[in-house]
C-alpha cells in the first residue's frame, strides 16, 4: 500500500484508529481516531506507544516490516503491558516507504491497554519515589552513624525522614536516634562517675592545723597528676597549709614519668611556701626509683604518715619556739 493521498483517504474513512509508521517505527501519519487515541498531540514524530501502547512496536509493526515482501495483511498479537496476556488487536501491512500501515481493529482494548499502561507508569513512579525515600533514609542513617563514629553524638536522623512516610526508614531512624540518646546518657553517666572516682581517688585531708595529707592510690598518669596538682594547690591556698604529706603507700608501680609527676607536684607546692614530705615508699618502689636514677635528694622522705606528722609537729614547735619572745627567769 503506497504512502500517498489515497492511503490518507482510506485512513480517514476508517472508524478504527489507523496510522502509518516509518522504517524507524515512528508514527508519521494517522487518522482522526488514532489522533483521538493518542490525545490532542500531533502524531508526527511520536513514539508508537503513544498511539497504541507498548508492545505494538515489537508485536505489530516489526513482524509486519519483516513480511513486507508478502504485501499481505498481517493480523498481529499485541501483548498487554505486563507481558502475560496476548490479544489480537491490530492488522498491519508493509507500505512502500519501508514502514507499515497499521489499523487497530479493537480500539476499546487499546484504550484499556493504555489505561493499564498509565496505571503501571503511576505505580512505577510511586515505587521510584518510595525507593528514593528509602535510599535517602538509608543515606541519613549512614551519615548519622558516620558522625557517631567520629564522636559527634549530636547528629540525628531528621524529622523530614522520620515523617517521610516510609515506615521502615522511620522505625530504623527512631531506633538510631534512641540508641544515640541512650549512648549519650551513658557517656554522661560515665563522665560523672569518672569525676566522682577522681575526686575520691585524691582525697586531701587536713590531719592537723596547717597540715594536709594526700594519700595517693593506684596509677598516676599525667592527667591524674595534673588533677592532683590543681586540687592540692587550691587546698593549700584555701586552708593556709604549711605542710603537705604526700603518702604513696597505695602506689604499687612507679616509673620515671610517675616520679617526675610527683616531683612536679612537690615543687609546685613548695612555690606556695609549703613544705612537702613524701611518705609510704615501699621496698619495690624504692628499688625502682634507685634503678631508674630518680633524684629525690632534695625532697624529704619519711617512712609513713605517722612519722611525717611527727616531723611536721616538730618543725612547727621549733618555729614556734624560735619566734617566741625571750624571757629571763630570775
Amino acid at each position, binding site marked *: 500500500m503506497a504512502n500517498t493521498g489515497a492511503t490518507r483517504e482510506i485512513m480517514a474513512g476508517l472508524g478504527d484508529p489507523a496510522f502509518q509508521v516509518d522504517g524507524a517505527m515512528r508514527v508519521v501519519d494517522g487518522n482522526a481516531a488514532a489522533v483521538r487515541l493518542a490525545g490532542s498531540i500531533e502524531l508526527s514524530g511520536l513514539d508508537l506507544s503513544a498511539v497504541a501502547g507498548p508492545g505494538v512496536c515489537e508485536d505489530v509493526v516489526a513482524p509486519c516490516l519483516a513480511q513486507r515482501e508478502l504485501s499481505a495483511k498481517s493480523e498481529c498479537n499485541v501483548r498487554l503491558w505486563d507481558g502475560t496476556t496476548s490479544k489480537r488487536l491490530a492488522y498491519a501491512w508493509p507500505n512502500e516507504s519501508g514502514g507499515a500501515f497499521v489499523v487497530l481493529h479493537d480500539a476499546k482494548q487499546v484504550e484499556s491497554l493504555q489505561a493499564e499502561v498509565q496505571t503501571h507508569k503511576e505505580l512505577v513512579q510511586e515505587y*521510584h519515589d518510595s*525507593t*528514593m525515600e*528509602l*535510599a*535517602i533514609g*538509608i*543515606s*541519613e542513617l*549512614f*551519615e548519622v*552513624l*558516620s558522625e557517631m*563514629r567520629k564522636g559527634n553524638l549530636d547528629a540525628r536522623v531528621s524529622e*523530614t*525522614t522520620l515523617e517521610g512516610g516510609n515506615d521502615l526508614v522511620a522505625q530504623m531512624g527512631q531506633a538510631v536516634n534512641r540508641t544515640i540518646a541512650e549512648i549519650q546518657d551513658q557517656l554522661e553517666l560515665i563522665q560523672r562517675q569518672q569525676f566522682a572516682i577522681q575526686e575520691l581517688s585524691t582525697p586531701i585531708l587536713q590531719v592537723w592545723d596547717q597540715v594536709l595529707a594526700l594519700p595517693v592510690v593506684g596509677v598516676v598518669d599525667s592527667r591524674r597528676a595534673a588533677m592532683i596538682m590543681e586540687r592540692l594547690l587550691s587546698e593549700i591556698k584555701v586552708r593556709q597549709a604549711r605542710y603537705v604529706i604526700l603518702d604513696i603507700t597505695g602506689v604499687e608501680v612507679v616509673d620515671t614519668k610517675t616520679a617526675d609527676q610527683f616531683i612536679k607536684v612537690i615543687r609546685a607546692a613548695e612555690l606556695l611556701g609549703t613544705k612537702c614530705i613524701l611518705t609510704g615508699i615501699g621496698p619495690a618502689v624504692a628499688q625502682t626509683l634507685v634503678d631508674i636514677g630518680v633524684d629525690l635528694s632534695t625532697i624529704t622522705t619519711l617512712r609513713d604518715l605517722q612519722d611525717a606528722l611527727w616531723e611536721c609537729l616538730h618543725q612547727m614547735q621549733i618555729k614556734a619556739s624560735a619566734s617566741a619572745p625571750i624571757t629571763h627567769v630570775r
Partner: protein
Amino acid sequence: MATINLDAKGLRCPQPVIRIAAKSAVLNAGDILVVAADCPTFEQDVRKWCGRMRKTLLAVTQQNGATIAQIQF
C-alpha cells in the same frame, strides 16, 4: 580535599544513591565524589538526594551514555 570516583553503571534506582551514601562514610567535608551512572532517572535522583542530604551538586554531564555527577561533601 580528595576526589573519589564511584562507578554505579549498570545499577538501577535507587542503588546508585545508596552507593553514594555508603561512600559518604569515608568522605570528609570538602571532598568531591564523582559518580558515573547510566540509570535513566539518575540525574533526577542525585539532584533530589543532594537537596535532602545538604550536599552540593557541582555539575551533571553526559559522557559515553553515562551521567556523571560531581558532588561536594
